[in-house]
Structure formats: C-alpha cells, structure tokens
C-alpha cells in the first residue's frame, strides 16, 4: 500500500535531522496557523499564490532563494564544524549523515538558492526594463515557480522522511546506481531535480520569448539594458542545457527503477557517459547563474557611477561570446579521467578563452567608474567587492584549466575554494546587489543602509577568512568531502576556515537584521519618487511598487538609456510630457493552475520516490486534469478600466512634477555636465 515507506523512514535514532526537521515543521505549521487565524489566507491566495504578475512571482522566487540559502548555509556550518572537530577524531556527524549534508549543501545552493535568486531577479526586473506589462506566458511563469518550489519541498522532506542522497551534488554513477545506493536518497535528489528542472526549462522558454518578441516600442536589441542581454543569454543557455540534465537524470532513473544499463558496472554501461553528459549541462549552468549577476553589476555600477555603461556593445558581445563558449569546455571538469594530451589541451585552452570576454567585462566596469561620481551605497559595495573577488576567482579558475596544474588540485579544497570564490563572489554578491538595488522598486521603501553595509563587510571578510585557508590546505593535498582526517599540517587551515564561517554567520545575522529593521522603519525609508537611486533604465520611470500593469502607456524608447533621456528632457523643457490618452488595459487573470499542478507533482514525486504506484497514478491524473481544465478556460484576461489607469498614473505624475519643481534647470544641467577642468 505504501511501497517502501514504513515507520523506519523517520530517523528516530538520529537526533540532528529529526530535531532540525521537527523545528522546520513546527515553524511551517505556526506560519500557516498564523495566516489562517489572522484571516490572511484569502489575501495570500488571491494576491500571491495564484498571481501571474511577474513582479509577485519574482518576489516569491527571491524569497524561496533566500530561505533555501539559509538552509544551505546551515549545511555549510555543519560541514566546516565537522571538519574542524574531525582531526584524529570522528567528529559529531557519522559518515552516512555527513555525506548527506554535503550532497544537500551543493544541491540546495545551486538549484534552490542560486537559481531562484537569479530567476527571481530576472522575473522582477526584465519586463520592467523592457517597458512591457508582463512576460510572454504569465501562467507558465507561475507554474515554473511552483514546480521549483516542489523540488525544494521534496529535498527538505528528506530531512524527516527517509534520507537525502549520499552520492554528492552531482550523483556520479556507479556510486549513485542502485547497487551502491539502494536507499531512497538518490531518488529524492533525482525526482526533486526532474520536477524543478521542468520549471526551469519553462522559465527559459518564457524569457527568451519575452525578450525576443515583447519589448516597448523603439526598444531595439541594441537599446536593451545589459541586464536584459545577460538574461537573454542565460535563458538561451537554459533552453539548450536543461534538456541535457533532464535526459541524463532520466537515464539514471531508468537504471535505478527499471534495471537499465546506461551507467552501470555491468551490462555494458559506462559511467564516463554520465560524467560527460552531466557536465555538458553543468558548465553552462555556471554561466546561467553568473551571467545575470554580470547584468546586475552592469546596472548597479552605471547607476551609482552616474554614467552610462562603458563599452555597451563590447559588453553585449562579451556576454554572447561567453554564452557560446560555455558549451565547449565541459571536459575541464575531469581532466584526470585520462583523455590524453590533445583532448585535455583543447578543452584547457577553450576554458582559458572564456577569461577573455570576462576580462573585457571587468575592464569595462572599471572604465564605467572612471570619470564617474561614485556613491557607495550597499548595492555598489557588493559590486565593488565582486569585481576584486571575482578577478581572484577567475585567476584560480584559469589556473585549474591548465591540465598539469589541475592534476595536482583537482577535487581538492583548492578547487572548492575556487568555485566558492566565483559563486559567492559572483552569483551571491550579485544577488545581494540586485535585492538591495530593486527592493525599493518592489516595496516602495529602501533597505537599511547601515545593516546592509555591515552585512557586506562581514561577508567580504568572512569569505576571505573561510576560503583563503581552503586554497592553502588544498595545495597541501587535502581533498574535498573528507569526514575525518589525520594530517597535522591541514589542521590549522581547517580551523581557520571554521573561524571564517563564524564571521559569515555574523554577516547572515546582519542580513536578517537588515530586513527586520527596514520593515519596521519602512515609513522612514519610504521612497515616493519611484526613482530612489537616480536610475537610468525604464523600471525607475514607474511608481514604486509598480501598478499591476507596470506602465500606464508603454514608453517610447529612443536611446540606450530611455529613462535618463526622459528626465533630461523634462529638466530642459521644464515640463513633463503631455498627459497621455488613457485607455483600458487588458491583463491576464490570476490562475491557480501552477499551484495545483505543483501540488499534484509533489504527490507524484513523493510516490515515485517511495514506489507507491497507485499514488503515482493519482498524482499524474490530477496534474493532467488541471492541464485540461486550464486549456478549456474561456476567459483569459480582465480589463483594468481607463479611470483606474488614469488615477494611478496621475498620482505618479504629481510626484514627478514635484521632482521637477525641486530641481532647478541650470543647477541640474551643471551637475550632470562634463567637467572640463578639475573643480
């Protein structure tokens, strides 16, 4: 009746996961109870859960990413503390638990923290920057989000029911095959990723369509903000790479469930095929994460330097160059499998070539700052911290792309330090920069600068204190994923990294305080202008938070920096553009399709993991019925009357008129003019 599921699945003998899982469960119940008792459920259902508004979905993605970041960080604390205690000692995590912790850390951080953060920020900002009302397929978008949430839920469910994979964040066979991992851990991993992966693929299709087909009038490709270009590149990569992941994991599932022999030790299977395929997805994935971050930094550095981005076309070319080359380098993840000199050299050089466009980007950011008037706000600090950190991470990256050097540090803590160097320094710093940059747009008030800056400096210091020792201990030959060790020379470095993670805990506390303090002091931090940073692209031209329809009238784009142009013209002529003729706006109706589909997918995934076949049938049937029901709908849109549009836009125009009145023409023009002589 319940397949492999018995009471044994609940780890009564392992206090750590039980208590952790129990606590999470209690918090979840408490939150749901609070929502229901306070009567927030209808609001939550109508305004968020069933919302197809790209801004709401973006916020929910970002929130999911931040919560999962917390979970992944707890895993990181466990890894570092176990290693700190495990010199000539067993530590406090036995291997079968420790192996789950590091597998979960990698899986959660990449798939359920970094990806949702980046997709969330793209969701929020791309349609606004393009000057349009929503993405191409709004209900698709909601479905994408809820399928990603399903994956995250399944991964976390493994804390209390059964166990998570012990076969690393990329489940290399034959270790992940049924013979060597007969427990449900790998199945949790596989089904969580298959379901979330479908969601990500839908996101890719959605955003490529949006960027290619739906832009404000006049917004040609070479007038798109660089963030939109990087979003386009990342989503093209998603479309090309995620099917590879799905197919590879499907083959492993066939091996595990139906006795196929794609990657097994017997029957002619070949595990090297898995390693090649998974990295054919895995390397582009790195750029799916970091390209949008590059876009965020481009926006942030230009805005806070008070200058347009330097070398815009060069940046676009570099982005698309990286997009292409990222598919030609996957073999550098396994130089030590013995492919031979020619193959290793070709892939090593291809990898190093990626450093060229990346280097160009760094130089262009540098020249954007050159001649600027830099305001060191929190987002700008993240961006500056990124440039320096990423250059170091890039250097160690090129270093491990030289095969003979890689032969000495492959799979060592040097490698671990390298990819944390680029993923924390690149993706995570980018996410924090993006969150602090666009937060006032999403909620109408800024985040607290003091706590934000404290979080930045502690993150930067904590990052170096944690990972510089890992570089060093990697050069001393310490490999990754060790549960215990007995080499005395490694110990001081491992302890130093343990200190670093404590500093990072401080950074995390500041981040949480930043949100709490900002929400409590929101009236103080309120931004009524909709343009708190003196921005340059279209998202700052609308109100904060923007109305559901984003723009009362789609803006007419006449240059690379449309909003800057609008502001300059308003100052020069001392008047806003004439009030437009407001028309009713058609917007897509909210739909619970995504949520209900994801509900049935959760049931299907859980049932597949535990081999509860009747429940699999039920879940699939439910998901199909939802799809048919959605396809049969006859009312797709609702109309926002012209009066409502006019009212919202007039309020915005009043604020802009105030802004105009406060800025003297000559003064403003002088402040933004080229200074020919040093003042």
């Amino acid at each position, binding site marked *: 009746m319940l397949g492999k599921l018995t009471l044994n699945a609940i780890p009564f003998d392992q206090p750590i996961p039980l208590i952790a899982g129990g606590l999470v469960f209690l918090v979840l119940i408490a939150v749901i109870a609070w929502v229901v008792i306070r009567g927030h459920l209808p609001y939550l259902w109508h305004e968020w859960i069933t919302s197809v508004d790209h801004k709401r979905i973006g916020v929910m993605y970002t929130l999911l990413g931040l919560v999962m970041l917390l979970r992944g960080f707890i895993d990181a604390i466990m890894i570092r503390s176990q290693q700190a205690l495990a010199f000539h000692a067993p530590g406090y995590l036995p291997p079968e638990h420790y192996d789950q912790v590091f597998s979960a850390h990698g899986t959660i951080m990449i798939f359920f923290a970094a990806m949702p953060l980046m997709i969330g920020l793209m969701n929020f900002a791309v349609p606004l920057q393009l000057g349009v009302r929503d993405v191409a397929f709004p209900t698709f978008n909601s479905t994408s989000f809820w399928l990603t949430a399903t994956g995250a839920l399944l991964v976390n469910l493994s804390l209390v029911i059964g166990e998570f994979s012990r076969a690393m964040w990329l489940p290399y066979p034959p270790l992940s095959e049924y013979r060597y991992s007969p427990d449900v851990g790998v199945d949790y991993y596989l089904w969580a990723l298959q379901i979330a992966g479908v969601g990500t693929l839908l996101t890719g299709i959605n955003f490529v369509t949006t960027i290619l087909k739906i832009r404000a009038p006049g917004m040609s490709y070479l007038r798109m903000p660089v963030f939109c270009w990087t979003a386009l590149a990342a989503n093209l990569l998603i479309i090309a790479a995620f099917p590879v992941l799905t197919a590879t994991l499907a083959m492993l599932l066939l091996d595990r469930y139906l006795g196929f022999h794609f990657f097994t030790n017997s029957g002619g299977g070949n595990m090297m095929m898995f390693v090649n395929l998974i990295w054919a997805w895995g390397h582009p994935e790195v750029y799916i994460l970091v390209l949008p971050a590059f876009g965020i930094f481009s926006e942030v550095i230009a805005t806070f330097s008070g200058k347009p981005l330097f070398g815009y076309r060069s940046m676009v070319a570099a982005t698309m160059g990286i997009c292409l080359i990222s598919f030609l380098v996957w073999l550098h993840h396994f130089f030590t499998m013995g492919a031979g000199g020619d193959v290793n050299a070709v892939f090593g050089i291809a990898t190093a070539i990626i450093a060229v466009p990346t280097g160009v980007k760094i130089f262009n950011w540098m020249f954007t700052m050159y001649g600027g008037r830099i305001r060191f706000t929190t987002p700008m600090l993240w961006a500056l911290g990124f*440039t320096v950190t990423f250059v*170091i991470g890039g250097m160690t990256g090129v270093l491990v792309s030289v095969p*003979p050097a890689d032969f000495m540090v492959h799979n060592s803590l040097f490698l671990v330090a390298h990819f944390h160097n680029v993923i924390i320094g690149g993706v995570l710093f980018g996410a924090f920069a993006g969150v602090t940059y666009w937060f006032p747009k999403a909620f109408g008030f800024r985040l607290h600068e003091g706590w934000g800056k404290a979080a930045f400096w502690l993150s930067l210091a904590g990052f170096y204190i944690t990972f510089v020792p890992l570089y060093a201990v990697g050069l001393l030959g310490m490999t990754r994923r060790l549960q215990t060790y007995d080499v005395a020379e490694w110990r001081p470095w491992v302890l130093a990294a343990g200190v670093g993670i404590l500093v990072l805990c401080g950074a995390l506390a500041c981040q949480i305080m930043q949100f709490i303090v900002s929400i409590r002091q929101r009236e103080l931090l309120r931004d009524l202008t909709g343009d708190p940073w003196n921005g340059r692209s279209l998202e700052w031209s609308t109100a904060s938070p923007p109305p559901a329809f984003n723009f009362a009238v789609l803006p007419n784009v006449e240059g690379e920096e449309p909003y800057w142009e609008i502001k300059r013209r308003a100052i020069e002529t001392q008047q806003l553009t004439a009030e437009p003729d407001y028309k009713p706006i058609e917007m897509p109706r909210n739909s619970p399709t995504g949520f209900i589909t994801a509900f049935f997918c959760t049931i299907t995934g859980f049932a597949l993991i535990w081999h509860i076949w009747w429940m699999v049938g039920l879940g699939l049937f439910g998901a199909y019925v939802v799809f048919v029901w959605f396809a049969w709908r006859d009312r797709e849109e609702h109309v926002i009357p012209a009066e409502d549009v006019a009212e919202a836009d007039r309020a915005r125009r009043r604020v802009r008129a105030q802004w105009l009145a406060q800025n003297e023409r000559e003064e403003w023009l002088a402040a933004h003019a080229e200074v020919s002589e040093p003042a």
Partner: protein
Amino acid sequence: MESSAADARDNIRSRCRLRTVSRVLVVLVPAAALGGCAGGVLQPKGPIGAANAKILLDAVGIMSVIVVPTIVGLVAIGWWFRASNTRARYQPRFVYSGRLEIIVWSIPLLVIMFLGGLTWIGSHELDPFVPIASNAKDPPLEVQVISLDWKWLFIYPQQRVASVNELVIPAGTPVHFFLTSASVMNQFFVPQLGSMIATMNGMQTQLHLQADRPGSYYGLSAQFSGDGFSGMHFTVRAVSQDDFEHWVAATQQSGGPVLDRNGYFDLLRESCDVKPFTYHSADPALFAAIVKRNLPPGPGPYVGRAGPGVRPIGCG
C-alpha cells in the same frame, strides 16, 4: 657518483627556484602563504610533481602580471572617483573609446595565447600515460592499482606480491601504474609525487610517477566514493633499490594471505579504515580479469534490502 652529486645540486637548485617563486606568491596570493609546509603539491619529491608545480606557479606568475594591476586599478579608480572627491573630474560622456576597446580585448587575449602555449605543451609532456624519460638502468617498476570499497590494493605483477593501503616503491626508479576500480570511481593521488588519475570499473588508466629520494609520502583518494571514503588513504614508502628487494623477499616469505580469486572476493566486500597488510603471493592475472569485468564488481551495501538508512556492512 659524479652524476648523482650533479643531480642533487640540480634538485636543490630547482627546489630553491620553487621556493623563490612561492615567496613571490606569498606577496601576490595570500593563499600560497605556505612557508615551510610539509607534504603539499608545492613541495614535490619527484619529477612529475616538480614539473606540475612549476607549471602551476608559472601560470600564476603569468596571470599575476595582469591580475594584480587590475585589482589595484579597480580599487584606486573606485576610490578616486568617489562622489565626495572634488578633485576628480566628472566625465559622464566617457562611454566609448575605440583605442581602449582594442586594448581591453587584446591584453587578456595575449595572456591567454601565452598561457595556451603553456597548456598545450604541458598537457602533452605531462600526460599521465606518457612514460618518464629516465636514464636509470632499471626498467620501470610495474604496479597494478585497484580501488575497492574502501581501500587500495597494490599488485606487483613482476614480483607476484601485493599489499593493501601501503605502497612500497624503489626511490629513483620510475613507477608505471595501471589502475582500475573494483566498484565505484576513485582518484589515485599522492600529492608530493604528482598527477592524480581516475580509477574506473571496467576501464584501465595509466600513470607514471617517480620518487627521487627515500621517504614517506601521503596518498589518498581524491574522488568521493561512499561512506568509507575518508579512510581511503595510504602511505607511499619510497626506499632504496636494495631495501625494496629486501621488502619483496620478506613479503614473499612472510606467512601473509594469498591473493587469488577467493582472497579477492574477501577483499571486495565493503570495509573501512583497513590497516595495511601484504599478500605473500598474488595472481598477476587478476587485474586484467577485473578490467575486462570477468570478475563481478564490488557488491555494495547489502544487496536486496532497500529500505531507508542503508549502512555499509563492516563499517562502524
């Protein structure tokens, strides 16, 4: 006699050069602040390790030429053009410069071309399958390496002995390793001797290493292979040619177990933290049988039971 003295001098010189470069690194990259460390990849004890380390340090040196000024430039420009600095010139129209574009594209390109040459040559010269050029009169020692759950088996086909979790080799003689895995993937890695290489079931990889002087070197697996992975380390004991022959003779005459098919099946089962031991006799055909999958792969943890909480047998 003379040549060995010259060798020793060369060795010292190359070691000193490494030291100097790593001193420079101390300034450039805090990560390399390894002072008098023992046992790392920057303290190689053999020709392969030394060549790899040299390439590693050369690559860092080449890249530092561009990376260090870039970091300094970023910080300096970021600070100088702060809004509160009234002496900095505001130039909002400085958004494109063809000359700068050419420079920013060509500098990284030139560095990468240079590094690409290093990569091409290094990848071929230091391919693990390529034998070590040696003027030693002794032919290379052959060792067959098999990774099991969770220990290392070393078979000496010419000497017909075998050992577990301890590898004894003659110093100054190249060692030709043939490697495979009895179950899951591992990586054979002796940091101070040089390159690591994967071991995979049904496949054979090769590796050439050499220890220049007698000594004890730490070896381990660099590829996570399951719950007993942390215990998969071994000691490489490089001894003089005479001592090696003594060790072989003593092992052959010892009363240790025999490594035949039955002995192999005993070893195949999962076990953790295995203390080193030797086999006084070993079947040299075993290795080929494993590579060709004529022998079954490791059984894994408890076949047939598939509930949650599967734990390896024979480990804590």
